[in-house]
């Protein structure tokens, strides 16, 4: 990122602090879901009692930390059209939406439901909306602007930044410390003992077809799917799956963990007969389903009698050790931090003797130092139980710690492709 972007960015040490700052900037219109149902309900009730019409006078452009959340409409066409109507530009040119879509490489996606867009496509849409909003917005607020962007999409953000700077609109960029770093993890950041530690495992994909779109599709919509080229490889943990935004990394992760339906064979193989691979989603807040820390732990018990709480404690001890003994932020007003929630979700998964632990963008919601220390802790504890780790990331951070690297790429999107296949995902070892 350019120096001017860095200078304009406010850096925070925790997800909770950054979310609070974002929330304050948007007049507390977003209830805090990460702190449990009670606080969420209090926030929602408070904002419901406010006169929302009073906020309508404030024209804000914003991108939430999960960019799809603030898009307000169902498809990219609707999002851009609504922004255009507010900018009073849509009436002037019939090709308005097409022009903006072309500028942000969204032309083929205009009618696709937002949930079915990849992370990269969603970010481009959020940037496109904010760019149209430059015509009327008083200011622009972005939470974690660098977290979702891969290098090839960074110029879209830079363009938006320059656009607001030129028009003298105030900008508020709220990021977590180190989130914008492009530097790979160094030996000083990652415990050296782990750099020589590995576990063998295999990945096998055959005749895979993934239905695209929501799991609950209207029956009138045409079902399309993506193909995955056959792939078989012997790998070593920690294994890294890399690729830019929208290449299909998260789709592969969801297939391996059985989170989405698919046709064909997909398996992570190991010498011992293990349980199914378990996945830590990028958006862990949704994954908690608003369960309390206690109920997340459930009643799972390891073979060696350990409980998730004990594994979680071990993970956090390793986390502190990786940070040179520096302590973590404890529960805030009775609520656990995002870091602790992530540790517990991994602990529960480690307890169940999984075939592998898949971490989708493990740095999401964490500062760089916290993310590196957490991954180090997970690798150490998982390897001590003989469980391989598959990291998924578009960031160049994790390369030095990976024992094997898989690159995910895909063919361009073909609408009405052969056999209804919109594109093919291809994996190769690097």
């Amino acid at each position, binding site marked *: 990122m350019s120096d001017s972007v860095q200078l304009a960015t406010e850096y925070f040490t925790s997800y909770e602090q950054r979310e609070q700052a974002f929330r304050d900037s948007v007049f507390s219109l977003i209830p805090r879901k990460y702190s449990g149902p009670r606080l969420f309900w209090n926030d929602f009730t408070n904002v419901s009692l406010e006169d929302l019409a009073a906020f309508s006078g404030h024209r804000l452009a914003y991108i939430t930390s999960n960019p799809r959340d603030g898009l307000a409409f169902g498809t990219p066409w609707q999002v851009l059209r609504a922004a255009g109507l507010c900018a009073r530009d849509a009436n002037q040119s019939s090709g308005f939406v097409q022009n903006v879509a072309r500028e942000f490489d969204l032309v083929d996606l205009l009618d696709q439901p937002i949930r079915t867009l990849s992370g990269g496509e969603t970010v481009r849409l959020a940037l496109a909306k904010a760019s149209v909003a430059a015509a009327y917005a008083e200011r622009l607020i972005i939470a974690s602007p660098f977290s979702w962007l891969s290098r090839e999409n960074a110029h879209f953000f830079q363009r938006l930044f320059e656009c607001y700077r030129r028009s003298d609109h105030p900008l508020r960029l709220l990021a977590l410390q180190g989130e914008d770093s492009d530097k790979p993890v160094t030996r000083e950041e990652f415990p050296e003992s782990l750099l020589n530690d590995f576990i063998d495992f295999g990945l096998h994909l055959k005749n895979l077809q993934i239905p695209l779109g929501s799991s609950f599709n209207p*029956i009138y919509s045409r079902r399309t799917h993506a193909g995955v080229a056959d792939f078989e490889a012997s790998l070593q943990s920690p294994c890294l799956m890399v690729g830019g935004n929208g290449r299909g990394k998260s789709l592969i992760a969801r297939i391996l963990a059985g989170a989405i339906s698919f046709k064909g064979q997909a398996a992570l193989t190991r010498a011992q007969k293990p349980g199914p691979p378990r996945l830590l989603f990028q958006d862990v807040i949704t994954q908690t389903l608003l369960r309390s820390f206690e109920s997340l732990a459930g009643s799972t018990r390891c073979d060696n009698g350990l409980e998730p709480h004990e594994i979680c404690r071990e993970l956090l001890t390793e986390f502190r050790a990786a940070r040179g003994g520096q302590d973590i932020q404890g529960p805030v007003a009775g609520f656990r931090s995002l870091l602790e929630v992530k540790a517990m979700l991994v602990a529960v998964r480690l307890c169940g003797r999984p075939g592998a632990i898949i971490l989708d963008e493990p740095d999401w919601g964490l500062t760089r130092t916290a993310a590196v220390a957490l991954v180090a802790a997970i690798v150490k504890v998982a390897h001590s139980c003989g469980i391989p780790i598959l990291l998924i990331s578009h960031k160049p951070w994790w390369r030095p710690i990976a024992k094997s690297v898989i690159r995910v790429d895909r063919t361009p999107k073909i609408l009405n492709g052969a056999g209804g296949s919109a594109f093919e995902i291809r994996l190769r070892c690097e």
Partner: protein
Amino acid sequence: MAVPSFAGYPVTLFEAEILDGIAYGWTIYFLVINFVILIITGKNFFPSVLTIAVLIAMPVVFVGAAISYLIFLLGLGYPAGPAAYSAHYVSLCITMLTVIPLALSLVAIIPFQDFEQSMLNTTSGVSKIEKWALMFLRVFNHIVFFVIPTIVETMREEAQYKKWVDSSVEASSAGLLKGKLNLLVRRFTALIKDMTQVGVEGICASIQYIPLWAVEISQLPGRSK
């Protein structure tokens, strides 16, 4: 096809009962509706619809019947015993297994997402009524096409593990009645827990962005005269 479920006509004309609570009218309507849904929506969609319908209907029917039985035991009502209310719950079950698949199929068939599109495809602005409709459609589409699928993905990931644990327990307790009963109880408790969690998450995720969207939709330019 859906009109009889709202109006009652002509289903209620056939009141004669096959068994207590199971009238000819509702039974035929239940069979016809589910058959038509199967034909229209296909074999991929229908099992999910039926599962959701059963998951909603069964707790309502059984908990309702249990409460009525408790009322009878405590001497607060139903002096004639279960015979006084059982027909009501059997009839409720048939009705729910007809109405829920019907409602879900309507959601899948009516192009709600296109309504949002057509309301924004305007050159003269958006009227106040259209803004209300847009807000309603936004929340509805968000629940159906965003919140529910996201929860389903999370639960599927967890279900893989639960299935694996159950299969190993089943193998180790093959033939033992106690083991099978324990498994059944565990599955039932897990189902109740999951449904509660899904309910809380579903409600919160559905309403989380309503204030933000309300402000954004209200900012759309009004209709010029």
